[in-house]
């Protein structure tokens, strides 16, 4: 704290608000909620930055973006320089600017945040990325000479795209194998349009393609070809195969019709465009009373999706309190504005169906918070005899998922953790199998986009060292 430069200018403690769609209007559409800063607002917001000599914000960023650097460029109105600075360390700024949990990372450590509101680092990042897209002039980075080395990347999600980006710039040849019919991974199948439009993901994918990535869609590494088969052809391989089997609560009735995993619910709507059924063929039920179980970003996304699909009542059921919700504060506020009803300190214990196997109600217990547990959050304790029934036609379970089992199942020589993830060395992202690296949800289970990108960045650096004989 001693090298913190005393602020010479007056502290501007209030962040500039970001214009967004009216909450009544946006309940009816899937368009993006927030419009982003206009240039003048971005510059005003950027001016709030103290340009600390020791930028704590940067320590909070899993990919180490030069935050004061790009903010300085915005203050100088040199947006082109700003986006260049940003892209030195982050291939997906339009995405990170929208979905990163900034309040837990960069913005949490912002010095102004101690007295007032931290600088809106995420919104400024988003501003630069959108400015570049709107300018129509996509600047390509300087590419290192070709090395002739070939890398296979499994999965076109945030981890895979980041690894591909870094290795391409370093001169290596990259082929991405994607199991689904569209790139983006969770960015496409999971995060809804109103929070991250697919066109923005498409834009970032296009950028990686223009850097030279070859992309094979509908290619299931593990079965279409195994990791071992790919290693015959490629010098190195990165596994970013992402999320797998959803977790359920292990309570009676979870296989009733009307009970969804968040992955199913969101995939039907986002990847398969179920909200446009029957124009698109994939249906999604439109029940009138929906309960979403969980308190993270995926739970908020599911609840807000249910609102937009026209449900009369959408409940968010979470076993801890408002303060413990793991979702981003901004998304919790958006959900509240849109009319999601929060049933906090509530734990479902049984799902009850009708004689045809359709869900009709959910039995819950009221909870109280006890002492903090291993996670540092106060432990939820059931209140005996507090059982009550909540009528509901649909339950979406958003409590997390395991790493995808396909590659662990089909790849001998990979050490797998008890939770089903690929074991890696933290410093290098190396797996226990030679020439194979891994990162993102396949290693961590359900985590954030930016942590997947952080893993990917470490892996790319390590792969580069290996390919250039520096180790």
């Amino acid at each position, binding site marked *: 704290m001693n090298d913190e430069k005393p602020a010479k200018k007056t502290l501007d403690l209030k962040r500039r608000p970001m214009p967004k769609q009216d909450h009544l209007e946006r309940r009816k559409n899937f368009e993006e909620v927030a419009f982003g800063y206009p240039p003048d607002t971005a510059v005003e917001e950027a001016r709030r930055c103290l340009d600390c000599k020791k930028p704590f914000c940067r320590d909070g960023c899993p990919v180490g973006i030069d935050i004061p650097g790009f903010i300085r460029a915005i203050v100088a109105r040199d947006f082109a320089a700003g986006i260049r600075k940003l892209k030195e360390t982050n291939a997906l700024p339009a995405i990170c600017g929208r979905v990163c949990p900034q309040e837990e990372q960069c913005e949490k450590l912002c010095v102004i945040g101690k007295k007032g509101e931290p600088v809106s680092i995420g919104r400024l990042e988003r501003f630069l990325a959108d400015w570049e897209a709107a300018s129509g002039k996509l600047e390509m980075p300087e590419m290192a000479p070709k090395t002739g080395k070939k890398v296979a990347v499994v999965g076109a999600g945030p981890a895979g795209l980041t690894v591909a980006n870094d290795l391409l710039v370093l001169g290596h040849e990259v082929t991405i194998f994607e199991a689904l019919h569209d790139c983006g991974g969770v960015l496409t199948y999971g995060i809804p349009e109103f929070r991250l439009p697919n066109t923005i993901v498409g834009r970032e994918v296009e950028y990686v393609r223009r850097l030279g990535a070859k992309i094979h869609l509908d290619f*299931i590494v593990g079965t279409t070809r195994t990791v071992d088969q790919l290693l015959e052809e490629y010098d190195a391989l990165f596994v970013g195969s992402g999320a797998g*089997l959803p977790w359920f609560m292990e309570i009676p009735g979870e296989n009733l019709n009307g009970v969804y995993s968040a992955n199913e619910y969101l995939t039907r709507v986002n990847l398969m465009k179920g909200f446009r059924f029957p124009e698109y063929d994939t249906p999604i039920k439109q029940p009138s009373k929906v309960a979403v179980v969980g308190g993270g970003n995926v739970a908020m996304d599911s609840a807000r999706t249910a609102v937009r699909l026209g449900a009369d009542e959408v409940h968010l059921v979470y076993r801890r309190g408002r303060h413990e919700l793991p979702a981003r504060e901004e998304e919790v506020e958006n959900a509240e504005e849109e009319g999601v009803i929060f049933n906090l300190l509530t734990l479902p214990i049984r799902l009850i169906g009708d004689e045809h196997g359709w869900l009709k109600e959910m039995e819950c217990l009221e909870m109280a918070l006890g002492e903090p547990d291993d996670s540092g959050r106060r432990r939820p304790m059931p209140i005996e005899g507090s059982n009550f029934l909540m009528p509901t036609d649909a339950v979406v379970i958003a409590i997390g998922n395991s790493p995808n089992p*396909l590659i662990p199942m089909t790849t001998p020589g990979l050490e797998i953790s008890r939770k089903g993830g690929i074991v890696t060395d933290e410093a290098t992202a190396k797996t226990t199998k030679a020439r194979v690296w891994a990162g993102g949800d396949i290693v961590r289970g359900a985590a954030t986009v930016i942590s997947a990108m952080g893993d990917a960045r470490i892996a790319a650096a390590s792969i580069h060292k290996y390919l250039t004989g520096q180790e």
Partner: protein
Amino acid sequence: MYEVIERRMIVPNHHELTVRAPAVAASIRPGQFVIVRPDEMGERIPLSVADWDAKAGTVTSIFMQVGASTAKLARLKPGRKIPTYAGPLGKATPIEKVGTALCVGGCYGIGSIHPVARALKAAGNKVYTFIEARSSYLVYWEEKLGRVSDGVFVVTRDGTAGRKGHIDKMPAMMEEAGVKPDLVIVNGCTFLLMRTSELTKPLGWKTIVNMNPIMIDGTGMCGVCRLSVGGKMKFACVDGPDFDGHEIDWAEFLARRKSYSPEEIDPLRRSSSATHF
């Protein structure tokens, strides 16, 4: 994009679809399935595979036309390109030397039991094939199945081919023929899978059923294909699709299988190809 090599109605409402997909053809094994999307607006649907030619790079499925997406598949013409043909998915049916194997097929399963019978035969088993259909005009591939089996039994509801009756007749027919299977493998519609399992349970015949739940991604991510096997939650796309038929909660499975039936059928009523009165 994947080129359609052939698509023809093989018997009423059942279509044979052959697609060029060399990577799939090179790696697929009996019991596995592919995920197909007929066009850019199409649903992802799982299809069991009935045959393949690794050299030519083609894969063949038999599918039954039920709802909107299979109706689209049923309109495909040779030369057309489809956007998704991904696979193989699911675990392969374990092929071991067990002695005598009975392969049971109905509906599309008459096709998809074929590679299973072929592989079991190649593994040195005595292989019998049992086909169930409503009527003779719904029986296909009898000869093709005969080439990979030691005997083919046919039962039809109206008796126009083989024995009159339905799958319930199977145990008696096996006894008459002196066939004592060490393993029964069933492919086809849910009712056939369930009924066969119910029949073989008291006989103590080990029965493997190739399950066909609703799926979306097919790669172990969405969880819609879950079912209860031996009281435990399993996922057909990665734990299966083959399971012990005696362990499955059939009532639950039947209900889940039907959860989107209205939506599957409804678009057919409004599609442009429907007849308007």
